[in-house]
């Protein structure tokens, strides 16, 4: 069957993908630069077609707690926001990780700190990958680099969320949220029926206590420290399985590379042009684009360093966050430097190239 192809904005595609993947609900609160997600959903009125619920909450705090409530019943639910709004949600992220609830959270990142700017940034890397709230926990984090990724990752994120019963974050930014590209849309998937949810999530979801089972309780509260530690160990084992099985990255011209740029999301698109510029000038430069930021593609970077790559440049739209993970992966085998712009400023391929020359290739 011929696939549907459209020219769409990243934020609009998120809404379209949410409906098409059979999501049961979206709860959100307007914030630039991602307000088109809810606007598009309200325009499309999926409650009249698939039965998907869309609700504008009174705050990001309420929106994420609505997600928490609905996710506890085994429903496929999501929310989207941008940096300051994501910070407001973070209390509930910890509760969801503690209660092992599957859900999808999208951050169309803008410049910070504070209210910051409304232009794109990657300054929420630490928040997304290192936990993002109190307690020991992790999101699974996917970083889209195109409008097509925005579409595909909604499907992937729900699959991962239910596979591991863990919140999944799509860490996008204002570039990808606002830009228009060609996108191939998946066919509409039906929402799960009550019977399907009952069968698939029978061990934990709040489907109503029947005579054949004990009551189900969604909670993250424990009074006994040893029981809490046992639970935490279970989470740690889950994160280890995720690190083992779910690492995703893309390579560009790495095979013979002497130097590697590491960049994710929109920055990776810019840096692929830097690679072309450097190659034209005779420098063997390659690009690693982490697709999953948690789990981070540590192994491939370490192997490249072992193979003899002479230097790594972590190019990020922030003041140096992912560079810490790159350094940990390279583990002293080669120099690792950071180049970034922040506050909503976006670097050009040439700026990254100049930084690569100064900080890595012509390094004294």
């Amino acid at each position: 069957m011929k696939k549907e192809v459209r020219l769409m904005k990243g934020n609009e595609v998120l809404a379209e993908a949410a409906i098409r993947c059979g999501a049961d609900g979206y709860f959100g609160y307007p914030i630039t630069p991602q307000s088109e997600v809810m606007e598009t959903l309200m325009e499309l009125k999926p409650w009249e077609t698939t039965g998907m619920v869309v609700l504008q909450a009174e705050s990001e705090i309420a929106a994420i707690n609505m997600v928490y409530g609905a996710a506890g019943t085994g429903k496929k639910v999501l929310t989207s926001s941008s940096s300051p709004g994501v910070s407001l949600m973070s209390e509930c992220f910890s509760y969801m990780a503690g209660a092992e609830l599957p859900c999808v959270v999208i951050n169309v990142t803008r410049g910070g700190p504070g209210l910051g700017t409304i232009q794109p940034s990657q300054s929420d890397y630490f928040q997304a990958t290192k936990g993002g709230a109190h307690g020991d926990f992790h999101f699974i984090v996917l970083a889209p680099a195109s409008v097509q990724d925005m579409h595909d990752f909604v499907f992937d994120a729900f699959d991962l969320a239910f596979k591991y019963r863990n919140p999944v974050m799509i860490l996008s930014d204002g570039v990808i949220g606002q830009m228009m590209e060609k996108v191939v849309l998946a066919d509409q998937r039906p929402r799960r029926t009550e019977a399907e949810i009952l069968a698939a999530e029978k061990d934990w979801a709040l489907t109503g206590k029947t005579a054949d089972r004990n009551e189900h309780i969604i909670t993250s509260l424990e009074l006994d420290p040893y029981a809490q530690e046992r639970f935490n160990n279970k989470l740690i084992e889950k994160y280890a399985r995720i690190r083992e099985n779910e690492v995703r990255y893309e390579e560009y011209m790495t095979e013979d590379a002497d130097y590697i740029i590491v960049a994710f999301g929109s920055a990776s698109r810019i840096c692929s042009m830097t690679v072309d510029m450097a190659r034209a000038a005779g420098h063997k430069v390659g690009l690693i684009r982490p697709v999953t930021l948690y789990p981070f593609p540590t192994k491939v970077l370490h192997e490249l360093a072992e193979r003899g790559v002479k230097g790594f440049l972590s190019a990020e739209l922030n003041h140096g966050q992912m560079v810490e993970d790159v350094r940990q992966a390279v583990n002293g085998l080669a120099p690792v430097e950071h180049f970034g712009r922040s506050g909503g400023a976006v670097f050009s391929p040439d700026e990254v190239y100049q930084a690569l020359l100064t900080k890595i290739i012509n390094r004294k």
Partner: protein
Amino acid sequence: MAEFEVQIKEENLAFRKSPILTDKVMHYCPGCSHGTVHNLVAEVIEELGIQDKTIGVSPVGCSVFAYNYLHIDWSQAAHGRACAVATGIKRTNPDKMVFTYQGDGDLAAIGTAETIHACNRGENIAVIFINNAIYGMTGGQMAPTTLIGMKTATTPYGRDPKLNGFPYKIADMIAPLPGVCYVTRQSVHTPANVRKAKNAIKKAFQNAMAGKGLSFVEIVATCNSGWKMSPVAANKWMEENCIPFYPLGDIKG
């Protein structure tokens, strides 16, 4: 001479534990109102035959462990967020009976926004609001509902409105909202009041199931540990001080 035959039969028992209640020993202090209200919620669920349809949302506070005491599915909410959690459950599961069970700190301080907006949207849920004018679980600090002059751990010289502001009546605040169909204030300190409170909870649950909007049942309650009184003295103090400020009866519907 009239003769009696004592008939101890199941159908004649006036006091019987609802099968909705679990056998777990409650952690509540002797004299606390929570146990009585839990029992009423259990009886209402039993009488309406909605055990398999009911999802409760427990708060942060003494009643966080409400989920240990009723044989129904429960979601435990972050502090103050119960009405948002209930909204998410109800909107995606419209055939379920969803209720929150919250204290005054949870509902009327940190959760004010979530409470008012769930009311204003007219969510088809029931809200059980236990107002004992104090934070019980954290050790008896001032609540938004603490009376003027009342001593708590954070108002050791009594609540002074110049320093701490005034107690407020959230039931009266939400009553005018068109999304709210029923607002009542009850207590459980006498058998007669317990019966009235049960009727109120039942009406709230029936409203929610019928899709009439949000029903709000406030229970003016005691916290004898937090108030540092015996259960009997706490009941008397509540009658003399709380009920005049929080008068009992239907406010709307």
